[in-house]
């Protein structure tokens, strides 16, 4: 079974993000970048499929030269090969999907796995776009996945409940947090990752459908409540802690 896992490079969740001087990009100064946390679940799911069924995992990213670090991390987790589609400019979702679709067409992947979203731009679009471009079934937000032969069954999270689905390979799947527990890279694998192949190619030119006009940090609003030591306020405090904050 050959698996393609799409990964992206995003600011660390612990970083305080600032807007750059152009007003429409992130100021990279001092920002630490990491492998998108949802993609770790995607990669882990891919690795488990390969461990069970044989084959190999290829990881793919679209992005600038610096993205090679998340590819090495993915290779250290156990992917065998990486494809780096290089673009110094930040592409829109359509352009990224088009580029990944090209990679997918050039090899016969049984399944393409992605994280449910990139935590930087949160577009949630990749899985559907890839499904459409490749004319493959696509399932998003998968919380449980079973693949037997070409039969794919699983569960996906929907508002207020779960949906049980069935489809067949080849397919494009985006995974939800908690589908598995991603492994830590092992030291020997980290060493080996240095010599695993990364196939670098330039991004193809595509139409663009979105452009970022400006970025803003949402204004912080603190909705504090001030209560006094009167009996009625104390009762109110207990009620709020119980009903609103739900901590007691």
């Amino acid at each position, binding site marked *: 079974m050959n698996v393609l896992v799409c990964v992206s490079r995003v600011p660390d969740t612990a970083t305080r993000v600032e807007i750059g001087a152009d007003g429409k990009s992130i100021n990279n100064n001092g920002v630490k970048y990491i492998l998108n946390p949802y993609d770790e679940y995607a990669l882990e799911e891919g690795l488990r499929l390969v461990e069970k069924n044989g084959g190999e995992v290829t990881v793919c990213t679209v992005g600038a030269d610096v993205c090679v670090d998340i590819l090495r991390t993915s290779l250290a987790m156990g992917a065998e090969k990486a494809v780096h589609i290089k673009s110094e400019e930040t592409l829109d979702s359509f352009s990224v999907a088009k580029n990944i679709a090209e990679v997918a067409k050039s090899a016969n992947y049984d399944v393409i796995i992605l994280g449910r979203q990139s935590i930087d731009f949160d577009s949630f679009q990749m899985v559907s776009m890839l499904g459409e471009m490749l004319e493959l079934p696509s399932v998003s937000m998968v919380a449980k996945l079973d693949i037997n032969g070409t039969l794919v069954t699983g569960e996906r999270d929907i508002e207020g409940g779960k949906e049980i689905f069935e489809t067949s390979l080849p397919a494009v799947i985006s995974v939800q947090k908690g589908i598995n527990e991603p492994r830590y890279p*092992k*030291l*020997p694998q*980290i*060493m080996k990752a240095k010599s695993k192949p990364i196939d670098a190619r330039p991004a193809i030119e595509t139409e663009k459908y979105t452009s970022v006009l400006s970025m803003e940090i949402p204004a912080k609003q603190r909705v504090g409540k001030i209560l006094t030591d009167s009996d009625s306020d104390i009762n109110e405090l207990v009620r709020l802690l119980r009903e609103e904050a739900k901590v007691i």
Partner: protein
Amino acid sequence: MPNIEHHYMEGTFPMDMIPKMGEIGLFGVTIPEEYGGAGANYTAYGLAMQELERGDSAFRSFASVQNSLVMFPIYTYASEEQKKKWLPKLASGEAIGCFGLTEPDFGSNPSGMITNANKVDGGYILNGAKMWITNGTLADVGVVWAKLDGKITGFLIEKGMEGFSAPVMKGKHSLRASVTSELIFQDVFIPDANRLDVNGLRGPLSCLTNARYGIAYGVIGAAMQVYESSVNYSKSRIQFGKPIGGFQLIQEKLVWMLNEITKAQLIMQRLGRLMDEKRARNEQVSLAKRNNVWMALECCRLAREIHGANGILSEYPIMRHANNLESVKTYEGTHDIHTLILGQDITGESAFM
């Protein structure tokens, strides 16, 4: 590092971490893969120690013993059979090792050791006692140094050998999450196959050089942890109407820490490369151990001050690291012993006696 405060307070080692550490390759970092090791270099080993000690010196101490004081001598001085028997299990964490050099009456001066081995048919009879032995009680195998015909020789002691016991030492205020033990040998028979092929102080010293390198890298992790806690605290603690980080005296402390941590990192980056090129000298390792442990302890002291009263609480990692580092300053050659090693190297004059 969740749960470490609990283990520190209870005086227990988090045993569930052992197989996990083994699985990601933290035991036998520099040992070839054919023996279960990670086959990585000393720079990688050092960085691994740094991250472990950022959690707690107990993890780094465990890993230092397993890597440098047990797997290294078995790999370097034991027979092929012993290597095959022990190294894969030690690498996975299935087996735990310990290193017995220090005795109740011989610490800085190990060549005076009393523990001795006598040749008998098929092996040796060991008598004596070791003290302050990390992981002694937990260990399945021990690299123990004893005098054979007046010369220091290494032996592999196995758990369950008749006449061998390893009671735990209680009442520590430092490295509380690490197990420290005595080793007692009463007419313990050790088969010929368990003797290491090395003679003299050179044997244990080669292990110590390795371990000291890991310690010198490790303590930077503790320093980084207390520094980070200090930065966060100074930004959020308000006194006299502004964050304490806005006062020059606090800034000076933060700058001192960052400055010293950066210097220590540079020393280790260079020393790591020298280790990888097999060009590092023992004295260079002494310099790094001596400087970096001192530096990490000073960082703890400054961090404690910056945190005010909160600095003594277990909610913050400061006192735990500070207390741990007091042991680290003493073990593997005390700060002062390293001064003497360096003093002798510089002047050619020994000031030991």
